[in-house]
């Protein structure tokens, strides 16, 4: 381990004890506790080895906290989200939601996927109402709440459009409304805005921050974009390059809120943090890049 990484870990460790008191300290339970999570996938073909995506990961998300997870692309960040969502059982380790062990799907959490996830045969309104209807809310009430959320994400007048008839940014807004209408306590977000152009993306990020500060959800936000991570989060966790990804450093982002993601990038605090985190992240990105090259060459 390099000196820089070790130093960062110490720094992160200190911050962690201040920011997120553990449940046995007698305070409120964390929204999410991942302890010793390891995920290994069976070999994809003959002669291949099993693939360990994440190894021995400990992560916490305090109630109302916004945590960004950054790391090189393909480092197993999504795997962690899937474990937290209950979509993927971990091979070893313990997942706790507000102190309770997670069994099956995590119904306290809303998941915003990187890929497109709207049902193409339903209109924007029915897509947003979909989850409510699944939980037995009657159609009139579900429609009313769906329309209210569509208005909140700025899509009034687009209720009857099908996903095919919406732009990429609009589809993301519908997806956001689809998740938030369920009023989840925890939000899991997997590079939700990575496919958007930079302007739309910053708009969406600001909207997300507004909504988050309005009803203080706990957010796990996975991204490979450091700028996005610092602008949004209370805490940034840096993951090592895959396979067998594990957190290598943590940083508190003490930039005051409310924030504006378009302006924040000029503040000295932001620049300092960006430099410190990038120092570590760069090594992981390079490692992942080198590994990619050797795989491609072999």
């Amino acid at each position, binding site marked *: 381990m390099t000196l820089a990484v070790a130093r960062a870990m110490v720094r992160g460790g200190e911050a962690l004890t201040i920011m997120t008191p553990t449940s046995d300290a007698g305070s409120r339970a964390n929204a999410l506790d991942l302890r010793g999570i390891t995920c290994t996938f069976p070999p994809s073909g003959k002669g291949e080895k099993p693939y360990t995506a994440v190894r021995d990961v400990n992560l916490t998300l305090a109630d109302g906290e916004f945590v960004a997870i950054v790391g090189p692309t393909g480092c197993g960040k999504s795997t962690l989200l*899937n474990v937290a*969502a209950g*979509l993927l059982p971990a091979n070893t380790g313990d997942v706790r939601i507000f102190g309770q062990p997670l069994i099956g*799907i*995590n*119904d306290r*959490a*809303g*998941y915003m*996927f990187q*890929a*497109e*996830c709207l*049902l*193409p*045969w*339903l*209109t924007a309104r029915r897509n947003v109402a*979909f*989850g409510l209807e*699944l*939980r037995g809310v009657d159609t009139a009430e579900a429609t009313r709440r769906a329309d209210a959320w569509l208005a909140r994400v700025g899509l009034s007048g687009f209720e009857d459009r*099908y*996903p*095919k*008839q919406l732009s990429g940014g609009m589809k993301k807004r519908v997806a956001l409304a*689809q*998740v938030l209408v*369920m009023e989840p306590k925890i939000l899991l977000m997997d590079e939700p805005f990575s496919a958007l152009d930079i302007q739309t993306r910053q708009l969406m990020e600001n909207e997300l921050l507004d909504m988050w500060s309005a009803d203080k959800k706990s957010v796990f936000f996975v991204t490979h974009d450091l700028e996005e991570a610092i602008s949004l989060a209370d805490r940034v966790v840096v993951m090592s390059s895959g396979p067998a990804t594990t957190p290598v450093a943590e940083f508190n982002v003490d930039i005051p809120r409310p924030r504006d993601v378009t302006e924040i990038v000029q503040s000295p605090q932001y620049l300092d943090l960006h430099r410190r985190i990038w120092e570590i992240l760069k090594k992981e990105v390079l490692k992942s890049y080198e590994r990619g090259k050797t795989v491609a060459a072999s």
Partner: protein
Amino acid sequence: MNNAKRHSIIWGARLAIIVALLIAWQISIEHSRIAAFFLGSPKKIGETLVEWFTTGSIYKHLGITLMETMLSFLIGTGFALILGLWLALNDMCAAIFDPFIKGLNSMPRLIMAPIFAVWFGLGIWSKVALGVTLVFFVVFFNVFQGIREVSPVLIANAKMLGASRQQLVRRVYIPSALSWVFSSLHLSVGLAFVGAVIGEYLGSSAGVGYLILEAEGTFDIETVLAGVILLTTCALILDFAITLFENSLLKWQGK
């Protein structure tokens, strides 16, 4: 403007081709008795068609053929949907039944027509059975593949939103299976029609295929060709109706 002009040129040319062919045909049979025997007279074919519709004698046969088409399509699609869904959602069953389905599909099914006639009699049901065997596989493979290829993210999303296994089938798998049924509609309705006509042709007591069969027995080439023209027109109208239906139903598939 330009588009309208293009449109009228296309239709004008099509009409000209048909008229030219008919004239060439009429001239050739007037100059050669052999041609007249083998090709029949377009004038007489026209008269036969007019007579069928003015006396109304054709409606009974046409009605039976269309009824068989409809039944073949509905029954074949119904079975295919149920079996396609079931096998696509059960890996083990899919693995067990895979060789049987492939085998049945590669079997030349027209050979089965006489057997169906023995099993179901000479009425409409033997034709329906033949049509079903043709429609079933087209729809089945579409549904099976369609269900298998439902995006895993769509499924994960529905699960996160609280879908139970049953809700997943009803609200995600079946709608996407239906969209695959619609995408194979042209082919499956076409095959249902083919099944009905071939079935009639191989042994029946009514239907357009039966009329053709009967006329062939007496070397009445004009009636045979009138029947063929009638069938072609019906197939075109069916295809057009499906296109209209698709446009109204599949708005979400958009451009």
